[in-house]
């Protein structure tokens, strides 16, 4: 009995926090089912009548799907690139003793301290020089480059944990270093690769600053950029913007539902170490 009463304050606090988190989502979701006039007369209640037009408008326009595909393409390309290059480098850092190893590894590790925002302006200048503005590569390559440090560090830790005997056996069977890397190490590292891939996908998916300065052409816009521009365009039509916001959240939240385990383990693995 007493134990049960003791948890009452906890329930209240947690519940209040939950309301704080949920209300904006619910407001957006229901707001999208109202007209803007209805929204300003009745902001708090349920939609009456339910208007589906905002949502159907959003998902029947090409812009939303194009932005979705752009986000997807950029996220996948970034992830493949950063994971592959990092895996190669992490392999060398984990399993070779070579001159300059510590220096190079420290160089990458220092990269962890660079806030992305610091590099935006010079990146813009560089990309302009290379002619990569208004080109998906202008977002993919820098994202991959900035993803390298964390990915290398996580993968190196994992590669180190694979016993030497495995490599010796593979070498005895005539495996070249690349053969061992490709046919033995990478398949063994699948869980670690999944973790770093999920982190890279989320980072790319949510990036706004870089696409903002690189993409002028609306055909290249990613979802975050598209939502922001949509707000500028339909400033007066609040209900429609809410619908766009909610629809744009769906892929990220769906991905969260599917990849929660990898995501949480990736984010917490490092943070709880030591």
């Amino acid at each position, binding site marked *: 009995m007493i134990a049960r009463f003791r948890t009452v304050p*906890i329930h209240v606090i*947690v519940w209040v926090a*939950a309301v704080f*988190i949920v209300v*904006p989502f619910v*407001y957006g979701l229901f707001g999208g089912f109202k007209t803007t006039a209805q*929204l*300003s007369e009745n*902001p*708090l209640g349920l939609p009456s009548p339910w208007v589906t037009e905002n949502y159907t408008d959003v998902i029947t326009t090409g812009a939303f799907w194009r932005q979705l595909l752009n986000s997807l393409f950029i996220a996948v390309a970034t992830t493949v690139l950063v994971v592959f*290059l990092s895996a*190669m*480098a992490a392999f*060398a850092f984990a399993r*070779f*003793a070579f001159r300059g190893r510590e220096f*190079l590894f420290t160089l*990458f590790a220092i990269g*962890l*301290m*660079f*806030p*992305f*925002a*610091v*590099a*935006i*302006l*010079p*990146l813009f200048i560089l990309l302009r020089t290379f002619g990569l503005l208004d080109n998906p590569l202008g977002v993919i*390559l820098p*994202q991959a*480059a*900035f993803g*390298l440090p*964390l990915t290398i*560090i996580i993968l190196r830790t994992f590669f180190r944990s694979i016993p030497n005997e495995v490599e010796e056996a593979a*070498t005895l069977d005539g495996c070249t270093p690349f053969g061992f890397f490709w046919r033995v190490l990478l398949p063994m590292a699948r869980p670690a690769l999944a973790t770093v891939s999920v*982190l890279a996908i*989320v*980072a790319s998916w949510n*990036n*706004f600053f870089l696409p903002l*300065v690189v993409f002028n052409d609306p055909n290249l816009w990613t979802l*975050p950029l598209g*939502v*922001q521009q949509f707000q500028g365009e339909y400033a007066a039509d609040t209900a429609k913007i809410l619908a766009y*916001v909610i629809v*744009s*959240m769906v892929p*990220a*939240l769906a*991905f*969260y539902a599917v990849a929660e385990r990898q995501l949480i383990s990736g984010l*917490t693995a*490092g*943070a*709880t*170490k*030591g």
Partner: protein
Amino acid sequence: MTGPDARPAPPGGRPAERRGRREGRRRGSGWITAILFVLPALVLFTLLVLTPILVAGYTSLHKWNGIGPPSDFIGLDNFTRLLNSDIFIGDLQNGGILVVLSLVVQLPLSLGLAVMLNQRIRGRALYRLLFFAPYMLSEAITGVLFSLILSPEAGLANRLLTSWGLEPWSWLSEPDTVLFSIFLVITWKYFGFHMIIYLAGLQGIPKELHEAARIDGAGGWKVFRHVTLPLLGPTIRVSVFLSVIGTIQLFDLVWILTGGGPSHASETMAVSMFEYGFKRTQIGYSSAISVAMFLISLVFALGYQRFVLRRDLEGASTTMGDHR
């Protein structure tokens, strides 16, 4: 010496050969192999992470509108201008206020909720899932949603206030309090992330320690203060680090919610850098802001590692994911 019809070496000779090859791989040719593996990553990293810092350093010494090569060398003038600019000093103060708010309000809140959710309460898996959900959203999309919620007339926040008989509030246009509105949104988006980190830390603390402390007569608060908190130290230090680094580069949310206004009241360094670099094409001055941001993060990161984290950070921080 060995002709095409030479027989393969007898099996007995093989191990020596193998050993020779492996030694070779570890030493001479090993260096080349290792470098070949590192090279692609190194090239990309040098070109797009290290070079930009150098470019910013170079252009920050020039007065340059971004057209043609920078030729008007002005030494450290951009930096003198920066340090004498009330706007820049204001940006620093805003960053400082957000950092303090995060450390004093957001992180304790996250920690408190983590401790609560670490107990066996009903629906904790659902709460955990829910609190972390906002972290998954893009800051840009979060910003758009909250700019509608906090908008002066039709926004949800003011509708709630008036329905409770309170005065509506200028959430995003009151210079004295706009930072608190920004902080509210930051907390909405990021406290779940810190909570998840703390939860993982808490789960690493053996239950026996808590039980032992309780048997020794320690109450709930004492157990927390003398057992949980010290053992959670490394996790807290990492979360503080991520929060500060995230705040230093805060851009998306502020840009969408207020654009840094009203009259720079919510401006951060990154917003200022964007404003000067991309709107007013004062590339040199904007580069100086980038360099200042870089130096501030570098000094903070090195100092923090040296004095606070020592060696327990390896592999802990992300800069691509933003953790405020």
